[in-house]
């Protein structure tokens, strides 16, 4: 017997949300999809099918910036995650010092991306920058404007400076959520500090780390302002990441079709990697 009462008026209640989502997400996205399959002239357009997709996927400029992007995001995660955990482990557990640490850690997070870029642009300048001039002063040849490796490391350092706090704060909250009984039990079981980290703290940090890794991956994969402010993507193309390549294509050259196709591919990559990561982790968790 079907006890469900059918009342189609209920759909009206969903309508406002539907409209909001449509205008903020679905319609813009569909516009991009529409652009990506057409060649647009001043007032007319021609349907071109998958031509733009084939073109951008074979574009060496794009392929190299995609590789750069993955290497960059990988490096960001490799540095920021362990460093964030380490900072969280070393923070005081309670009292005034803990609050002070939290405030200091939160500060970089409040600074806008382009300001961070400007700070490091000046800080790293070989002639007047505190860091740049100092490094050159002690005999290390450092110049982000001419040396691709220096530029690369500077962008990485900038990101680490800006965002390690986020990982540290997440881990700190995760660590605080571990009941004292675990540490007491570990003491009684004669566990070493490493065993406590490996078997208690790390497993308990799992869920915050998943969030941290996802956020840092997505964010670093879309990095734009920092390298743009620092060197404008140079020297050469060494710090030109995906978003900058895209912007150049869409706004600089006004290639709307290929840019739209590129955006969609970009979007799908972020989605796919995040999904793969997330399902693997949750899958491992449910095993046995």
């Amino acid at each position: 017997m079907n006890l469900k009462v059918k009342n189609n008026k209920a759909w009206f209640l969903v309508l406002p949300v539907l409209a909001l989502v449509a205008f903020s997400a679905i319609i813009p996205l569909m516009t991009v999809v529409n652009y990506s399959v057409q060649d647009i002239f001043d007032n007319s357009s021609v349907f071109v099918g998958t031509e733009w997709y084939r073109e951008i996927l074979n574009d060496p400029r794009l392929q190299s910036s995609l590789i750069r992007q993955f290497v960059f995001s990988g490096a960001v995660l490799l540095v920021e995650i362990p460093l964030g955990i380490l900072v969280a482990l070393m923070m005081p557990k309670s009292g005034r010092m803990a609050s002070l640490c939290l405030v200091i850690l939160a500060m970089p997070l409040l600074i806008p991306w382009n300001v961070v870029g400007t700070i490091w642009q000046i800080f790293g300048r070989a002639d007047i920058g505190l860091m740049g001039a100092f490094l050159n002063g002690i005999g290390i040849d450092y110049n982000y404007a001419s040396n691709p490796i220096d530029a690369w490391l500077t962008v990485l350092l900038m990101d680490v400076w800006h965002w390690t706090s986020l990982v540290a704060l997440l881990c700190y909250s995760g660590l605080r959520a571990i009941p004292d009984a675990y540490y007491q039990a570990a003491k009684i079981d004669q566990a070493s500090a490493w065993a406590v980290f490996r078997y208690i703290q790390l497993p308990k940090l799992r869920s915050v780390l998943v969030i941290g890794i996802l956020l840092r991956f997505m964010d670093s994969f879309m990095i734009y302002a920092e390298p743009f402010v620092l060197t404008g993507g140079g020297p050469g193309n060494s710090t030109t990441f995906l978003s900058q390549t895209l912007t150049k294509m869409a706004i600089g050259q006004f290639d709307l079709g290929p840019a739209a196709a590129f955006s969609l591919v970009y979007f799908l990559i972020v989605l796919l990697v995040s999904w793969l990561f997330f399902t693997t982790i949750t899958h491992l968790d449910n095993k046995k």
Partner: protein
Amino acid sequence: MAEIRLEALAHSYLESPCKPEDYAIREMNHIWEQGGAYALLGPSGCGKSTLLNIISGLLTPSEGHVKFDQKTVNGLEPNQRNIAQVFQFPVVYDSMSVFDNLAFPLRNLKYPKDKIDQKVKEIADVLDLTALLNRRANHLTADEKQKVSMGRGLVRDDVSAILFDEPLTVIDPHLKWKLRRKLKQIHEKFNITMVYVTHDQLEASTFADKIALMYQGQIVQFGTPQELFETPEHTFVGYFIGSPGMNIIEVDLKGSNFIFDDIKLPLADYLDPAAIDILCKKEAPNLKIGIRPEFIKITNNVSQCDNQPCFECNVLDIENLGTYKIATLQLGQQKIKARIAEDAFVPTEKAMISFPKRWLKIYLDEYLFREKNL
């Protein structure tokens, strides 16, 4: 294996305690003998867990000594004391299997692999965990987890004592008695000193040979369940043990009688002359009398009172609890509970009650007044 001795032990969470109320544990001397099964019983906040944590070394006492077999261990960390502790909420390392959980303390102690295998299997067998050895610990039920936590304490050969901090709180009632029996078996098998903290008198008396009852940071009585029931050393023991607890009535001493409201109890019926002499010399003594509901004699006429002072009271309520009844009686301004056995006389409106000499306890400043000790 060890005897645990507490000498002049006191602990305060404050930095400079001065009043007795500042202490979570007030100065105490106590001995837990090797191989005994003890319960540490008391209401919430009386200092049970503090005392337990001091014994295991998670807390350092502010005064006094903890000695294991005559050796002071105050400064030693828990891992140097060879003590196992089971907590209120089961602690399992959830990324590990049950086997790895049980093996964890042994691996930390760098036992050889075959020895670990053998010990873990032995303990899993005792605790009925063999079938679960390969399961991940986070998928276990609460009682299985608690068994794993106990197991981690038992696998080590070198533990001198196992401390339980209300280990059955989160366990389903129908599994409680099973686990409690398991504990008892383990105690008999391994002959380890066990101290079991609880606020449940039933749990304490089924597990322990001897119960230490704590109140306001002190052990007010240490004895067998029967001793605690029959001869409470402190009014709190009377109140806390038994259901319902002891009837405790504040009394004055006037002439040769205990007096409360307008009721008179002749001293000579309950105390010998020497004791009366001592009591009468005290100035405005804080006196209370106590009698267990089980020991109040209820009759319907004076002739059955066996020459004891007999009082008429109103019956306020009779509560039928199946095999016995609890009567609430009004005597003067006091409400007195009395337990009526299954086939005994049940009063309706009025009843005569008397307090047998053997079971009427007299408390001076809350502690039991004893004739011979004074």
